[in-house]
Structures are given as C-alpha cells and as structure tokens.
C-alpha cells in the first residue's frame, strides 16, 4: 500500500508571534519551526498502519520554503520512506487554495491508497488543505478522524469521528483522504537511529514547472483570498475570576494557564 502524509512546517506553538507594522506575514526572525501537531497525528497513523499491515510505503509531502525540508527530515527520521518538497519562490503569497492545488498536483499519479493530513495547521488554522486536496484529486474525504482501520483485501477503510455529543463510524472505498484529529494516536519521537538513517533518504523537490502549474495559478495571483491586514492585538489587562467549587474551577484554571497565559 502507498500512503502519503501531508505535513506543514509551522512556528513552534510556544513562539510569541510578532508582526512588523504594515507586514502581512509574521516576523520569522528567531522563530523555531515544528511539524504542525495535527500533522504529527497523521504521520504517526501512517507508521501504525505499516506496523499493522506490513507492506506500507510512506511518502511525506510538504509545501514551503527550503527550510520546510526540516519537517520532512523529521518524517524520514520517524520512518517515512521518501519525501517530496513542493517549493518555488512563485508560491510566495499563496493561500490555502493554491497550496492544496499544488499539493494535489504533486500527489497526482502517485497511486496513493491513503492520503493523511492534520485537520488544520496550527499557524493559519485555515482547516482547508486536506479537504481541498481531496476535491482536486476527486477523492472522498473524511475529516476529524479519531480512529482508522484499513481493510487491505477489501480496499476499504473505516474511520471514526468524535462529534459534539455523539460519534460516527464511516466506511469509505480507497483511495481516500483523511484528516487527523487529536485522540487518533500518541505520536512517537524520532529515535536516534532513525535520525541518522534519514540523512541517507531522498527528498525530491518539485517546483511549479515540474507540477505543470501556470504562473497565474501560483502565489498571490492564484489565490482566492487576500490578507488585508495582520497585527498582534494590543492586550488590555484582563482579570478573570473563576467562581464555583474548587473541583470545577481547578481544571478550568489549569486550562487557562496552559492555553491563554501559556505558562504551563
């Protein structure tokens, strides 16, 4: 079986994002990058599929600047067999639509049985690419997957989704696209041996020309949406008082400290 995993290189979630006045992108100076955490679930699922099914070829795919090879190198260290970087200066200013179109072009003809991606990237939170890639490739998509089982012989997969107050189990004929939600698995860390072996694995770079995309399909020109303004909101001091029984307020406080104050 062939599995493609889409990964995005995003600023570390602990980064304090800064935007220079007038800019429409974040200030990348001193920012460390990680694989978007939802994409880590997708990558881990591919590794688990291989452990369960045996013969599974894993290709990691990313779109981004040369720096994004680091995310692909991590996937190779985790056990991906090969990797593709979709990269071209012409993609500067691309939106999620262009990104999905380019990724779909890179995946086309690869005969992947499953395409796995995170449900959204944690930097722009567009939650668009996985679904749009499926659309460009004319494949079914199941979003927010928390459990995935593949029946190789039947050429089908069964995915579970946890929704608001209920769960759903969906069967789909492969090939198909799945986007990963928290809870799908518990991503492992790359082992030292894997890191060293990854140095010898290939990362293919595909530019716009290799993908057969015309200049007017790329970057800001091909984008369907335009960023008008970007800024870090000025924060007025906000005091929050939690009322209620300690058993209720304590978990809430921990959550706020972790997610809002980011001190945990």
């Amino acid at each position, binding site marked *: 079986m062939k599995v493609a995993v889409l990964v995005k290189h995003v600023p570390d979630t602990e980064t*304090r994002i*800064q935007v220079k006045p007038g800019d429409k992108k974040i*200030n990348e*100076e*001193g920012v460390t990058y990680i694989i978007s955490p939802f994409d880590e679930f997708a990558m881990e699922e591919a590794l688990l599929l291989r452990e369960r099914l045996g013969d599974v070829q894993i290709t990691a795919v990313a779109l981004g600047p040369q720096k994004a090879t*680091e995310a692909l*190198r*991590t996937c190779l*260290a985790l056990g991906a067999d090969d990797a593709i970087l979709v990269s071209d200066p012409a993609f500067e200013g691309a939106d999620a639509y262009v990104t999905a179109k380019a990724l779909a072009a890179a995946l086309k003809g690869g005969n992947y049985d499953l395409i796995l991606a995170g449900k959204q990237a944690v930097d722009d939170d567009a939650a668009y690419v996985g679904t749009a890639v499926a659309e460009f490739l004319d494949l079914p998509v199941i979003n927010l997957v928390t459990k995935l089982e593949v029946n190789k012989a039947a050429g089908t997969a069964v995915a579970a989704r946890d929704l608001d107050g209920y769960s759903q189990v969906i069967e789909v004929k492969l090939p198909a696209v799945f986007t990963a939600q928290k809870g799908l698995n518990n991503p492992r*860390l*790359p*082992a*030292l*041996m*894997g*890191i*060293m072996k*990854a*140095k010898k694995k290939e990362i293919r770079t595909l530019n716009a020309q290799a993908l057969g995309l015309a200049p007017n399909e790329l970057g800001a020109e091909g984008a369907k949406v335009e960023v008008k303004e970007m800024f870090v909101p000025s924060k007025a001091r906000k005091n929050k008082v939690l009322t209620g029984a300690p058993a209720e307020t304590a978990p809430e406080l921990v959550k706020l400290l972790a997610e809002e104050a980011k001190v945990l």
Partner: protein
Amino acid sequence: MPNNPMDYYLIDEMFSADERAVRDTVRKFVDREVKPIIGEAWLKGEFPMPLIPKMAELGLFGSTLPEEYGGAGLSPIAYGLMMQELERGDSGLRSFASVQSSLSMFAIYKFGTEEQRRRWLPQMTAGKVIGCYGLTEPDAGSDPGAMITRARKTDKGWVLSGVKRWITNGTLAGVAVVWAKDEDGQIQGFLVEKGQPGFTTKDMKTKVSMRASITSELYLDGVEVPEASRLPGVKGLGSALSCLTEARYGIAWGVVGAAMDCLKEAIDYTATRTVFGQPLAAKQLTQERLTDMLARVVGGQLLAARLGQIKAAGKLTYAHVSLAKRENVRRSLEVARMDRELLGANGITTEYNAIRHMVNLETVDTYEGAYEVHSLIVGRDLTGQAAF
C-alpha cells in the same frame, strides 16, 4: 525579540541538522517523561525504572557505537547534546546513560573480543542488560592504581577478590566491568555476571545527593571467572582511565544542561515573584545574578561545543577533557546555587529544580575525577611536573 537565554550566543548554528534533531528528540523526551516525575523519584531515592525501556527505544544507550552493535554512530557533538538534555532532567539520569554507554559498553567495545561484543552490546543497547563499572574502591578513589582488588590466575581462569564502592547501577547491573590487579601488579578488566557465585551487591542508602541514581557496593568473594570473561585488549590502568575520558567528555556537556535548567527556572521565577511591589526581575541584585548565571551557561556551552569539535577531529587529549569537566561542573554548580538563592524558600523544595540540581552537582564535582584531580592533570600538562 529578546535573545533566547538557552542559546544566547546562537551556538545552535555550530551544530548540524541531525545533531540538532538528536538534541530535540532527547529534549522532548525529558520534558514529557522525566520532568513530571523526577522530583518525586529523587525524594524517594529511586531511579525511575520505567524510563529504561523508553530510553532504549529512542536509542540513547551506546548511541555512538557502529550500527552493527545496535548504535546509531552519533557524532561526539550529538552525543554531548544528548547528555546535556538528559542532565537538564537530572544528573542521575545522565549518570545512568554515562555508565551504560561511555563506561560499560565502551569498555566492552574497545577492549572486548568480538564474541564479548556480540554477546553483550546489542542487549545493552536495548536496555535489557544494564552495565556497571567497578573501578573505585573504599580506599582507592582519586588514586585508582592503589586498588586492592586482586585477580589470581588459575588453571580454569581467574579468581577475583575485593570490594568496589560508589558504583552507579551496581545492583541493577546484569554485567559488571571489574578492574583488578593480577599477580604481576598489572591491572586487568573482567566481565562479571550477576548471580555468579561469590558476587554480591548492595545499595548505598544514605546519600543526600544524586538520589535518583542507584549507587552500590560490589563484593567479590573469590569469584571464579573463565579466561573468556577477561577483556583481552586492556593494557593496564591507562585502559581503565580511557573509559573515564569518554564519560568525562559527556559530563562536560551534561552539567551545562543542569545549569540551563536552573537559569530558565530563575528567569521564570523572578519574572513573576513580586517583592516590595515589583517583580524580583526588576531589581538590580537579581539582574546581576541572572547575568552571572548566563555568563557561566554561555561559557559552558562554548567550551563543550569546542570540545566536541576537537573530539570529532581526533585531536582530543584527556587534559582537554579534564579542563572542561573541571570548569563546567564547578560553574554549573555555582549557577545552581544562585538559582537556589533567587528562589528563596521555594528553592529548597523539590517542587522546583534548584536544590535537586545543586546537590546533584556536588557529586558531579567530585566523581569522575574530583575538581582537584583535574587541576593536577591539567597542571602536569602545563608544567611537565606531576604533582599528585
């Protein structure tokens, strides 16, 4: 954006992508698996055993060895960064890895037969067999040549008698590298297996430092071992000391991790702790102390990084390692003491890291060549005069 106190001099740029990747893996491992439990384990005086298979799975044991013995062929810098991150967790954790990899596995790899390597190294990489290193004795520490453990040659092999003390992982070990003097006064190395008749071990229970590390005594009461258990590549005391050079190299890196952890803790704590209506961090005394700490951390990082480059280039001498071990441990100990002070009363609890690192580093300052012994090693290198 303010400079990152963990990498103030952008030393990251000196490392390759795979070296940084190794560091990141171990860093995440320590944050996820070690940080949440280490304070309690330390207080209880226990090594956190569930970490062993997890460390093995990540390939942290014997990681510099070639692939055929289960290693990853790591560069000296990658190995150093791994030790830095482990000691950011706890000196006891780094000690565990040092003894397993740089002392026990290195001795078997360097001085053992192919059969000994094949028998032990893959199992030790997998964490299924733990090793220990029996050199120090109750009355022979800084002067290991004064050891009284004896190896007597017999028709069947060798008979070992003596006591070893301060042996990390002694009671956990499935195999002990034991150093003993033969009847000609030559120092020989032997592999002694757990459960061999006459071989017993006992933990030392009164430590107030390095509490999350097991320290033991080994008793060898006429232990019979075959010739096949002798390490044939050993050439006297120098062989035993060459393993120490490997371990000390890792210590020079490791302690910088403990200092980094203390610096970060002090910066975070003083930013939020209010005194006389202001954060502690807004006080001149605090800022001077934080700068003192940073200077030591940056100095340690640079020394370790350069030591790694020299090692990779094959130009490393044991005196290079002595100077770095001596300096980095003492400076890191000072950083931990400053962290302890800045945290006030909170600094004496295991809810924070300061005092745990601080008293651990008191051990590290003494073991693997005491501060003073390294002064003498470097002093001899500078003057040509031995002053031991």
